[in-house]
């Protein structure tokens, strides 16, 4: 498992705020996902209803999770696949290693998977002489840099273009050192060429799964690059890593979730590749793996059922909550100290690794409520962070620790970077939603406020502070 540095959240955060490279990267990324999401949502009038349905589908599934997991397994078996049930991260690592060993694997290609990060699959394979190769562009550079993702859908969120160029020059030593990267496209082209060789040489391909479907025994991956599909199509063996809460009952249920996922994540109507895998190669097929394995992982999730954190298991890992979080936007993902950053991480991480080491995370919040207002399955994230803090008090924390936690909240509340980011991002999104309307007659989560009055649409140009800064920059050049 990835080492936990969450106890040092405050130090991590302070370092992040003082890191010019990181602040530049966060500044570049800022707003890109927000604007695209707001646009995609504005284009689908039914979005709010789809969110309610999505929440209900997930609640129904969780209330009958034992039934749907068994139904799912029987369908996987019927299609010639195998399900490996794994209670712990140790079980899952062992299962993956055994499949790879039986396949005589020397290299393994990997699609992007957060559960793989959670389980520490790469380190385990390496320790046993098997070479894992990350093939998602962002994961690939992080593997070269020996870093972990800082974002759940854009792993290299914290890097600038110059970082990419420098790392490629440093590590792709077989290429001319004086080659020029004119555009981002050139970086992409080099990665494509490098990884082609790996896809073709791999013995096993490991992917995650966005959904499992009980009706058909399928695993679903959603990607833009096509690396996940190459990973699961070319090698002789495909392993899909999935946690137990990924299951939904039917294809129709999956469709509803898919209508929410891409819009909430990248602001696309649909990702480029949405792929359903069901079992191993069929007779007459000209390609595809001979073996299909699902490593089905619990690793602490079943303990969340029946608690005040059960609703967290509705999460579809879209990242909207972190994209809209002022704290994440100010400090980036690494400060959170484990695999899952942002608001969803602040709730999930204590559930999975224990509150003892992660008690600071539920305080890494300004309680602005934006995460909950954008979550496609309506997880009450701020309320859950509050639950964690209450649990902390019940556990009779030492006064010193208590002071640290309250201190952290105050520390964030005082950070102008955090608050400035929050107001600017909110204005951007509101301006986009209300474009051409002049005023809002109703606003999500502000019903009480907009009932008796209209909220004026923000003027283009941003906050006073942003305009002031822009004006000053303008004078200087």
């Amino acid at each position, binding site marked *: 498992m990835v080492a936990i540095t969450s106890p040092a959240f405050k130090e991590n955060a302070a370092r992040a705020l003082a890191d010019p490279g990181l602040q530049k990267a966060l500044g570049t990324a800022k707003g890109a996902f927000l604007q695209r999401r707001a646009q995609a949502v504005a284009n689908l009038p039914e979005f709010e209803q789809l969110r309610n349905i999505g929440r209900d589908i997930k609640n129904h599934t969780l209330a009958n999770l034992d039934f749907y997991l068994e139904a799912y397994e029987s369908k996987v078996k019927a299609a010639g696949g195998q399900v490996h049930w794994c209670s712990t991260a140790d079980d899952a690592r062992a299962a993956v290693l055994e499949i790879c060993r039986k396949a005589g694997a020397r290299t393994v290609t990997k699609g992007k998977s957060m559960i793989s990060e959670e389980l520490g699959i790469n380190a385990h394979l390496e320790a046993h002489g098997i070479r894992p190769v990350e093939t998602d562009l962002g994961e690939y550079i992080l593997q070269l840099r020996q870093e972990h993702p800082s974002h759940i859908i854009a792993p290299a969120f914290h890097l600038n273009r110059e970082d990419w160029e420098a790392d490629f020059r440093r590590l792709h030593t077989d290429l001319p050192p004086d080659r020029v990267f004119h555009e981002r496209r050139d970086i992409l082209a080099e990665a494509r060429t490098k990884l082609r060789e790996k896809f073709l040489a791999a013995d096993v391909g490991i992917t995650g799964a966005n959904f499992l479907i009980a009706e058909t025994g399928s695993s679903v991956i959603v990607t833009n690059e096509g690396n996940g599909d190459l990973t699961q199509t070319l090698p002789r063996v495909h392993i899909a890593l999935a946690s137990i809460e990924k299951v939904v009952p039917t294809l129709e249920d999956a469709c509803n979730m898919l209508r929410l996922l891409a819009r909430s994540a990248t602001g696309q109507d649909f990702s480029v590749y*949405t792929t359903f895998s069901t079992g191993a190669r069929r007779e007459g097929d000209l390609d595809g793996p001979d073996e299909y394995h699902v490593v089905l992982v619990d690793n602490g999730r079943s303990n969340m059922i029946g608690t005040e954190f059960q609703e967290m298991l509705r999460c579809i890992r879209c990242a909207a909550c972190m994209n809209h979080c002022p704290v994440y936007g100010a400090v980036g993902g690494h400060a959170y100290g484990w695999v899952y950053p942002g608001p969803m991480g602040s709730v999930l991480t204590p559930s999975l690794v224990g509150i003892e080491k992660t008690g600071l995370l539920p305080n890494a919040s300004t309680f602005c409520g934006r995460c909950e207002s954008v979550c496609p399955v309506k997880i009450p994230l701020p309320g859950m962070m509050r639950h964690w803090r209450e649990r902390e008090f019940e556990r009779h924390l030492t006064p010193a620790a208590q002071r640290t936690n309250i201190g952290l909240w105050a520390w964030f509340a005082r950070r102008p970077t955090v608050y400035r980011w929050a107001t600017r991002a909110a204005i951007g999104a509101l301006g986009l939603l209300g474009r051409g309307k002049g005023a809002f007659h109703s606003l999500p989560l502000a019903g009480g406020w907009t009932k008796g009055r209209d909220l004026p649409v923000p003027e283009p140009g941003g906050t006073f502070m942003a305009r002031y800064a822009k004006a000053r920059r303008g004078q200087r050049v």
Partner: protein
Amino acid sequence: MSKDAILGAIRRGLKRGPLPADQQAMLAGRLASHPRHLIPARSRLPRPDQVALFVRNVEKEFGTVERVPDLAAVPAALAEYLAAQNLPSRFVLAPNPDFEGIPWTDRPLLTFERRRAQASDQVSLQHGWAGIAETGTLMLPSGPGRPTTLNLLAETEVVVLRASTIVGAYEEAWDRLRAESHDVRSGGFMPRNIMFVTGPSRSADIEQTLELGAHGPRRLHVILVDDDAAALPPGDATPPPPVAVPGGPAAPGD
């Protein structure tokens, strides 16, 4: 063992044992009847508009579309597309029975092999099983006549799609698959793999800026065969296709 431990922990959390038989039957019924949820209104259109929406959405997602009257027009359309893009006239062809009648000899310069794709292939010609107008998505189930590698390895993927197979929403395509497909191995209807493809591959991993041409095809071109009289634009059999700006809205107010 892990299985029992996991199911046991779930049931403890839910404060119950295994579900009673009647409740299991109810859930099995839900799986068997797979009820539809809300289907967005955007694709609930007359046939010609539905097909036009599909075309606009493919273009919005950086794909290209050419409409041709019948399968016999495919060789000319393909040859011209490849020439215009400066691509070789060699390609890997999906060994699909639906392609048997295509008069390839009309364009003797086109050369092809019927097989799975290889890393060295520059162009693939794939068979489209269905198109989904809602998002301009191609549905490509795997099988002997539609190898998955054709969607992945070539830099340029050309898909021949019959207009009669375009539906509004994903759910309609699933219902057609349930009705038409029989998988011998599982006894169900799912083939090994189904790819839903919406535009050419891309990545936003470098500074969250979209770049086309990641690991999959850099270009996606659809040759749309107008085999559905009801789906033709009214009044004119072969009008120029409506143009959507790549990355821009697919429909006014969209």
